[in-house]
């Protein structure tokens, strides 16, 4: 059967209980520990799906598939919290309530995009860890070449300009007017008090905003 938001909440609750006390992963969590208590019907459906099982003493555990589901829900919940707080500046109760609903609405791919957007955050605003997703693993596996904005380079680093990207077209125009274009080799000379870099035989000085629009593929 399809998993419902209520069932997801249950999984989430169990996961969080295990999070606090990792030994419970194997020994199971006593049903009395849940405040408010878990809904019986949902638990039954989850068991039928094979996401939870019970120990002899009636404690509830997450099966591997249940674990995976729970992790996903929690990840989406905590990513939503980060999104609300960091990007949308929504805090407190409103954040909690909204995040709680987001977790059921976000498709996994959308969550990955949010994760990338936020720069693969490791913890939620409450300090709890955010389970990593495929995008985070991919990031770790990726070594070179990495593309970074010129503003992030250290003096002496070189690379090839991969692309120019800025919210305002004037910034791109300015760079083009200087002759700073994709394909050119660039070396950063200084960061402070302004960004000074070299392309070919010419040197240019720009501020942080423009330096942030030049994306460089680094040389190893």
């Amino acid at each position, binding site marked *: 059967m399809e998993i419902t938001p209520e069932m997801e909440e249950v999984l989430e609750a169990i996961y969080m209980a295990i999070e606090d006390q990792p030994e419970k992963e194997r020994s199971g969590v006593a049903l009395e520990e849940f405040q408010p208590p878990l809904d019986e019907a949902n638990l039954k459906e989850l068991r039928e799906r094979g996401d939870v099982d019970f120990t002899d003493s009636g404690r509830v555990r997450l099966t591997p598939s249940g674990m995976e589901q729970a992790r996903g829900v929690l990840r989406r919940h905590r990513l939503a919290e980060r999104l609300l707080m960091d990007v949308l500046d929504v805090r407190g109760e409103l954040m909690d309530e909204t995040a709680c609903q987001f977790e059921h609405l976000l498709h996994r791919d959308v969550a990955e995009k949010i994760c990338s957007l936020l720069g693969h955050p490791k913890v939620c605003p409450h300090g709890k860890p955010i389970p990593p997703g495929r995008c985070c693993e991919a990031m770790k596996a990726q070594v070179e070449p990495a593309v970074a904005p010129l503003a992030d380079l250290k003096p002496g680093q070189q690379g090839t300009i991969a692309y120019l990207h800025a919210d305002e*077209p*004037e*910034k*791109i*125009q*300015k*760079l*083009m*007017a*200087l*002759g700073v*274009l994709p*394909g*050119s080799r660039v070396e950063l*000379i*200084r960061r*402070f*008090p*302004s960004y*000074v870099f*070299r392309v*070919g*035989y*010419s*040197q*240019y*000085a*720009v*501020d942080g*905003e*423009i330096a942030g629009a030049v994306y460089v593929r680094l040389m190893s």
Partner: protein
Amino acid sequence: MPGKRKGRFGFKWRRRGPFRFALRHRRPDIKASKEPLPEVAIVGSPNVGKSVMFSQLTGHYVTVSNYPGTTVEVTRGRGRIDGRQFSIVDTPGLYSLLPITEEERVARRILLNEAPECIVHMVDAKNLERMLPSTLQLIELGKPVILNLNIIDEAEKLGIQIDREGLAKELGIPVVATVATSGRGVNELKEKIIAAQPREDIAPLRYDDFIEKAIKDIAHRLKGIYNASARGLSLLLLQEDREMMEKVGAQETEALAEIMAVVNEARGKTPHSIGYLIANRRRDWAEEIKRRYVLSPSLLKISFAERLSRLTISPATGIPILLLVLYFGLYKFVGVFGAGTVVNFLEGKIFGEYLNPWVNALLLRILPVAFGWQFWARELVGGQYGIFTLGVTYAVAIILPIVGLFFLLFSILEDTGYFPRLALLIDRIFKRIGLNGRAVIPMVLGFGCVTMATMVTRILETRRERIIATLLLALAIPCSAQYGVITGLLAQRQAGFLGVSYAFLLWAAILTGVFLLVGMLAAQVLGGSPPSFYMELPPLRLPQISNVLTKTVTRLSWYFREVLPLFLWASIIIWAGRISRAFDLIIQGFSPLMRLLGLPEKAGEVFLYGFFRRDFGAAGLFDLNSRGLLSGVQLLVACVALTLFLPCIAQLLIMKKERGLKVTVVMLVFIFSTAFGVGALVNFILTGLGVKL
């Protein structure tokens, strides 16, 4: 004279160097020529010297107008080469035939709609490799192209050698090396323009097979009339250029459908975009060409100039360097030498001992009666405030040497390429006051003549910047005429840090403080944010005497023509004010303000005259001081208030013209209050602390 041509300073003023801008004659009465003169189009990315070359090639009838339907300005002119007349168009900066900006779109439209007989592709010789892909695109269009390697002198200085013949043979087009600013190579360029012929082979580069096939299929279907070769057009269509698609669609709708089918088929044959493949191939080709025909030394060795440059841009060393430049340049050269030695010589000796007494004696001979109208007539020309004894004397003996020396210093610094480095050092600070590093030019120029600097604020990008810059210039930047005299006054006081008097240091510090504070306030009040800072850093080099002299003379002659006459008028106004006793009344009106500043009532003269001519005001101070009527603190207070005080009459006119009447009036009110407010504050604090200067 500002009266003659309404609202325009009708002169042509071209500056070379990294801050390139020109004020050209606008002649709306002469329309673009309707005769079918053969057209030469100058094409290239910005900052390669297109405008300079344009002036080299054209003689008369230069017009600047908007390309129809856009805000992009296009400059056209007529030139005569070897007896034949040409129409020359200076296209807006174009990097690639796939335009991104509106300027590029217009440039391309000019090429495709106007069928020029010859395209001069101007490139910066030392960056040839980067520009070659565009040369290729122009060649592919099918028109005669001349590759013009400009700024060849800088390339030579870097040790770059280009095999022009080999390159010309490889590309199949003439290759000319020039230095547009000096005229070197321009004659050869003209010869090549005359001899321009459409070429046979317009495919120096072949792309991937499937692309070449697609090109052939598309070219085959193009039956209409376009101002480009089939190959060039096909390449643009393959890259799905909107404008081209519309153009073709307008002429042959079915063909367009078939063509787009070919394009889609080609698209399906590669995971990359076709444009990406084409751009890559062109880049590889350009690298190969560079390898074969351009010899460039390794960039690893850092020359002395580069080392020095690095020193100027690191704050730890750059700021001391700046202070040294200020000390030796502004203080010693313009201040002590100019305002002191030279002025003393000119004013004291030449005018003081010879010319003025001679004029006065002459006047007495013509109009011998001591009082009455003859007295006033003599006073008009001679005496204490006469046109000659004060107006001309001050203009020639005081202002001209000081301003002249400042312009000389400025031109030297400009020619070395120091200013972009200064700009990048102060960009962050300037951002706090709503400006950015690029404003360094008008600000520094303000130390020479604030009027000229206010005009130069035109190079600033946003209106907000222009207003803030104008305000700060009018308020806190002392022009050299003022600055010279004030330095003379304050430098004589008790010596302090490094041999510079405390009074002077305090004056400088107070001004800097007001500058920053008012700047920050203005930035807050006006809202918005400063535009991003970007600037090329040309290599540091020794100033060339010819350049320096040309620039200095240009600026000086502008000053002579536009500002000095106003000062002569000011003398007349002062004379009239004295006759009618109007001035005495105004000075009396000033006395409460003077008391607030702790100054004697007579100091009111200083401000009144200072409005018309700053140097008059400062000279009045000089007078009071030498008569022992002012204490050190009073002198400082007066200097501070005078510097902050209303702009001189020349500048007032420029402000009204550039920023508009409303803005100017608001600024004036603010400036007036600030000048006296700060003066009163300084007086209060210093006398309260019992400081003696």
